């Protein structure tokens, strides 16, 4: 099956990294799609948790926000937000946290807070939300983002969430006991941190993608693994599942027309 977009490849590659016994803290956007594709294909028993307090949720359409009613309707249980962050996130119950990034560096540090100076920002982004503690409390972190020179940068403007810091054992030196970013899935490739330096290294190129394309859309000199795999193309089942999900979602988010603008 060759007729798929880079975005679809990214989502499907991410979904494959998830298993039945995983407990995922799900963000909105690509992570939410990936987690639900996994649930609808090879990992029906995966536990999806959204920070709104919905545990073990199985939405039929992707939520627009992390607190859509659909998440609660289909959850095993829905807890308060303090409980979510205390018992479930800080309590170490989450195996995988999914994060996106406005800016990302090669050590998996993420900025979604500001472009420019924090106190006089050029662009005020939404900020971290759950990310600072997702990054430190989940067993490991998967990152998904579309590659761009603006997004994958040598030096991020703000440490919204800590990845591997300056690399090496920087996490341990800060007393963080979890693994941090162990996987980066972009629209072009799959990346894993070097075991020693923790620098993200391309281990697999998506079908038809060249090393040059990866480098051209990344702001740091890219390291490639010695044996570079090709990411298996999406199967028909994966692609249909994703597209059906997106179509259902789009229809639902337009909603019934109301008689007021908002």
């Amino acid at each position, binding site marked *: 099956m060759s007729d798929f977009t880079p975005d679809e490849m990214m989502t499907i590659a991410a979904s494959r990294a998830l298993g039945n016994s995983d407990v995922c803290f799900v963000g909105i956007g690509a992570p939410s799609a990936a987690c639900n594709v996994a649930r609808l294909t090879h990992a029906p028993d995966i536990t999806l948790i959204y920070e709104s307090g919905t545990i073990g949720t199985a939405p039929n359409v992707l939520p627009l926000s992390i607190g859509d*009613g659909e998440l609660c309707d289909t959850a095993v249980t*829905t807890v308060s*937000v303090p409980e979510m962050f*205390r018992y479930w996130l*800080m309590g170490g119950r989450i195996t995988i946290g999914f994060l996106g990034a406005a800016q990302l560096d090669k050590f998996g540090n993420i900025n979604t807070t500001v472009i420019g100076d924090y106190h006089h920002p050029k662009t005020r982004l*939404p900020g971290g939300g759950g990310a600072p503690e997702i990054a430190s409390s989940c067993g490991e972190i998967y990152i998904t983002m579309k590659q761009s020179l603006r997004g994958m940068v040598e030096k991020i403007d703000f440490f919204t969430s800590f990845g591997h810091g300056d690399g090496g054992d920087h996490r341990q030196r800060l007393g963080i006991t979890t693994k941090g970013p162990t996987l980066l899935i972009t629209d072009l490739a799959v990346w894993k941190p070097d075991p020693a330096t923790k620098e993200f290294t391309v281990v697999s190129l998506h079908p038809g993608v060249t090393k040059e394309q990866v480098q051209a859309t990344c702001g740091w000199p890219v390291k490639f693994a010695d044996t570079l795999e090709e990411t298996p193309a999406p199967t028909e089942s994966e692609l249909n599942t994703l597209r059906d999900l997106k179509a259902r979602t789009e229809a639902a988010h337009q909603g019934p027309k109301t008689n*007021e603008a*908002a």
Partner: protein
Amino acid sequence: MAAFMSLRDAVAQNLNDGDTAAFEGFTHLIPHAAAHEAIRQGFRDLTLIRMTPDLVYDQMIGMGMARKLVFSYVGNPGVGLLRRARDAIENGWPNRPEVEEHSHSGMANAYEAGAAGLPCAIFRGYKGAGLANVNPNIKSITCPFTGEELAAIPSVRPDVSFVHAQKADKKGNVLVEGIIGIQKEAVLAAKRAVVTVEEVVDDLDAHPNLCVLPTWTIDAISVVPGGAHPSYTHGYYMRDNAAYLEWDRIAADRDTFLAWMKENVLDVGPEVYESRIEKLRKVS
């Protein structure tokens, strides 16, 4: 005991210029009607606390009511940036509010500690995070048993909290269900609490373990059907996702924003919400 009154009176009696105010609702049950009433009454110099400021605070910020913002995510969830908040923070229009930024975990713990009457929240957080360098209210304490350094932030203790909920019984006991968020903590952490509800019933008839706020924890209750719109009330009407998408366009331009606010907030009253949710009601 909670007193039932009009939304106009509930806001006038419980909010003051200069107050620290929380209008809470974690995506679900956002008290839009109460916030719009506060906008109509023209309060100023507010310290606005909210985990996810989204549309309701974008509007209050754009109308120049905020002296300070305390938050953990200043975005339009699932849509993108908050353009009025950005304009205020980046360009000082209409004023430049002070910013105290936390993580969700920080804010959730701070509300929890506020409800518990504690001066500060202690938790494992902000490790390696840049917020710890720019927010002087993020400090640390050392566990006296293990030596581990834990984050400490001040608890949230608003002068007044506004929340929306499904229903009250005639005595003023309030039921919150679905994504309960931090509704209970926002009420219990505050000096005064105002609740808007979809309806009043004889008996809540609720399972004993549901989230019920006893009447004596609430100061005022106003019945405002649809009062969470474009947020939603679980069991009553759906989230108006289209309105959230549309807000991105409205808030992008100052004049469009002001015109929208005049037409949809300043020139109307709490009775409009019921009509806004007509098409969003659940068919049961």
